[in-house]
Structures are given as C-alpha cells and as structure tokens.
C-alpha cells in the first residue's frame, strides 16, 4: 500500500480516537449507576437465615427502613382467600392476626443481590403482588437484568486502586425472596402449593 494511503488511514484512526475521547470526557458521568460493593455471600446467607428464623419481625424491620423489604396492604372483606403462587416456589409464611381488621398485609424480603461483586438489590423488582377478587396473586415476572461494567485498564491498576479493587469480590448471587402474609384471624386460606403457618 502506498505511504500516503497509510498516512491517511492512520490519521483517520487517530482523529476518530481523539473525537471519541473528547466525547467521552463530555459524558455526564453522574447519570451512571453508582456501583456499591456488595456484601459477601456468607453475610447474605446469614441475614436470609436470620429472617427465615424470625419471620414475624419483618413488619418491624420494614418500619426501621430495611431496604430489602417491600410491603403491600389490601383491604379484604371475604371469608376465604386463595393464594396463587404460580411459576415460582417462593417460601410463603402465613400468620393469622389476633384481630379481624379486614386487612391483608404482605411483606416481601428480597435477599441482597450481587453481580460481579456489585450490589444490585435496589435494581431488582420483587414479585408483583395483586389482589384480584378473592385471589392473592404472587407472580414473578421472568426478567433478564443486563449491566455493563468497565474494569480499569491493566495499565492503570498497577498504580491505582490497588486497595480499592479488593473491596469488590467477584460474587454473583441473590434474587431469592421470602414472603410473609398477615391475614385477619377468621380468614380461610386456600392454596395449591405449600405454605407455612406461623404458630
């Protein structure tokens, strides 16, 4: 290839890189998702077991602002309620209240989720919970969460972020839920799948 064409190609490439770099520096970086280091898988499991063992504490934990808990309250005046938990096998606990206040309270505990060591708990939507006639529908929509991350270039990591990089494990996991339902004392619960009653 003649020199002038080579010069032209190399110049175009350099120009593209320079333009790309200028564009990159004008990108509003604050709009990106803030990457928080996830808690360890061991800690996630420990917290999950603690919730499992003390499920009645969920309403109090929610009041205290635990971000892993979502809650729903439905007015319900019927005598029987069928719990539909299709397409998934979430752990469901049903607790009969000591009063008949015509209110069904649902608490969903989402275990902390991590993706490549980054906390994504807030990004994950819990199951959709709806009251339709005398059905309490618990449905988990099949969903794919796709995120992009840019590890620092190896030419940078040798001198920067040596200690910070240790903050991030490469752990991926989570997404599991426990559902705790508080129902009025006289309400009859109908279900096809296994549920646990809180004594």
């Amino acid at each position, binding site marked *: *290839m003649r*020199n002038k064409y*080579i*010069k032209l*190609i*190399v110049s175009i*490439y*350099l120009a*593209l*890189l*320079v333009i*790309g*770099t200028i*564009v*990159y*520096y004008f*990108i*509003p*970086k604050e*709009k*990106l*998702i*803030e*990457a928080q280091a996830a808690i360890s898988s061991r800690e996630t499991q420990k917290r999950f077991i603690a919730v499992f063992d003390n499920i009645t504490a969920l309403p109090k934990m929610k009041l205290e602002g635990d971000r892993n808990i979502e809650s729903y309250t439905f007015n319900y005046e019927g005598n029987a309620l069928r719990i539909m938990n299709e397409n*998934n*096998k*979430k752990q469901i606990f049903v607790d009969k209240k000591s009063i008949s206040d015509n209110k069904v309270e649902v608490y969903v505990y989402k275990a902390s*989720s991590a*993706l*490549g060591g*980054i906390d*994504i708990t807030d990004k*994950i939507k819990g199951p959709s919970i709806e009251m339709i006639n005398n059905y309490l529908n618990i449905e*988990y*929509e*099949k*969903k*794919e*969460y*796709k*995120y*992009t*991350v*840019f*590890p*620092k*270039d*190896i*030419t*940078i990591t*040798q*001198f*920067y972020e*040596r200690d910070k990089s240790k903050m991030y494990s*490469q752990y*991926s*996991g*989570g*997404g*599991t839920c426990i559902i705790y339902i508080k129902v009025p004392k006289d309400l009859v619960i109908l279900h096809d799948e296994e549920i646990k009653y809180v004594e």
Partner: protein
Amino acid sequence: MSLTKNNLLPIVKKQYLYKLQGCSKFFLVMVIVQIIGILFTICNMTSKSYTSDGVLTFMLLENTTTQIFIFTIICAFGGAIVINLKEAKDIDFTFVSNRISSNLSSIAFLITYALFGAITFPLSACFIRGVKYLLLGSKNIFDRGFVITPAELLCSSGTTFLYMLFFSSITYFSIILIERSKAFIIVLLAVTVLLPRTEYFNYANNFYGSEHNFLMFTVKIIVTSIVFFLASILFSNNVEVRK
C-alpha cells in the same frame, strides 16, 4: 566504511526518517490490530451471568481493554522483529552508514512505534467507553471503572510506552543474538519455555509487574531497555555490514 563522530547523528536522523517512511505499514498493522481489539470489546466478548430460581437472569458484561493492550504489545514484538529483517535493514545501506547508526535509527524507530501505541491504546479505552455510552445510555452502565481521570490517562499512556519499549528492547536483542548465530534460536526457545517455570520469572514478574510506584517502574524499565539496546549495539557492532 567508517563514519566520524561528527556526522553520526545526521546519518542516524536520515536513516530514522527513511525507516519511518519505509516501515510505515507497521503503524497500519497496529491500527488494524487495535481496531480488531476495539470491536471485540464493543461486542462484549466477556460476561458473567447467573440465574435465580429460573426466573431472574443477571448478566454482567465486562468491557475490558486487556486484549487491546496485549495486541499492542504483540505489535511491539513484531516491530522489533521486522525492523531487523533484511528488507528493513536494506534501507540502511541507502546511506553511508555503520552498525551503530543502523541500530540507533532502528531503536529510534521502535521508540516512535512505542509512542504511537502509547497514544492510541489509552485513547481507545476512552473511545470504547464513549461508544458504549452512546449505544447503551447511562442506565445500564456502572460507574465503577468507567471514569478515567486525565492523570490515569497519562499513567496509562506512560505504562503502555514503557511496556512496549521493554518488550521491543528484549526482542531486538534476541534478534541480534540470532543474527550472530542461529544456535541462539535454540537457546532462546529453551529460555522462553523454561524461564516461566523458574523462580527467576516470578522474581522478574514481581520486580516489574508488582512495582506500584510509577517513578520506580519508569526507572526500572528505562534502565533495562537501555541495557538491552546497548547490548544489541555491542553484539552487532562487529557483524558484517550486509549480514
């Protein structure tokens, strides 16, 4: 043929400029190789994923520029080999020259080549981030690692230059040895195969790769490269002119 000290530098400069013209396709090779690396990165060749309860699927796409860096370093190897090939060396004999001027102009060319890599590699990392942002938007990109500060950009550029210089000097020296005697091919192959299994390799790896002080790293690499280049000049100095 001999050269007086007084006209060595002008000859080196002429040879260097001539090599820059004659070997311009090296730059094209690096451009092509880097474009391939950029495409690999943009197309997300590496990802991690897991599925929770068969319902939720999580995928983390990692846009690492490591492959572009490796490709660039391979170009440094290639450059040091090809500059020693007969076709490239024939350029030297367009002028009245000697081994020293030939080596110095080749070294100057390799330094220029390393500088080119040192400019293009860090910019390609920014370019990829810019393109990905434009393609995906902000809501799916984590800020971790996305931001490259100007200081990091300079550091990346310096490190790329130093690594390219380091590998160029070693390769250049190896080729000079092979030029002296083909027996060195066997010696170098043996060293390449056996060295990674020895403690010396770990020591060298720690000495350069685990140096976290940029200034110290620069000194180590520059000194090593100078040693290899000087050794190359010394070893090749009494070789026949057109060998």
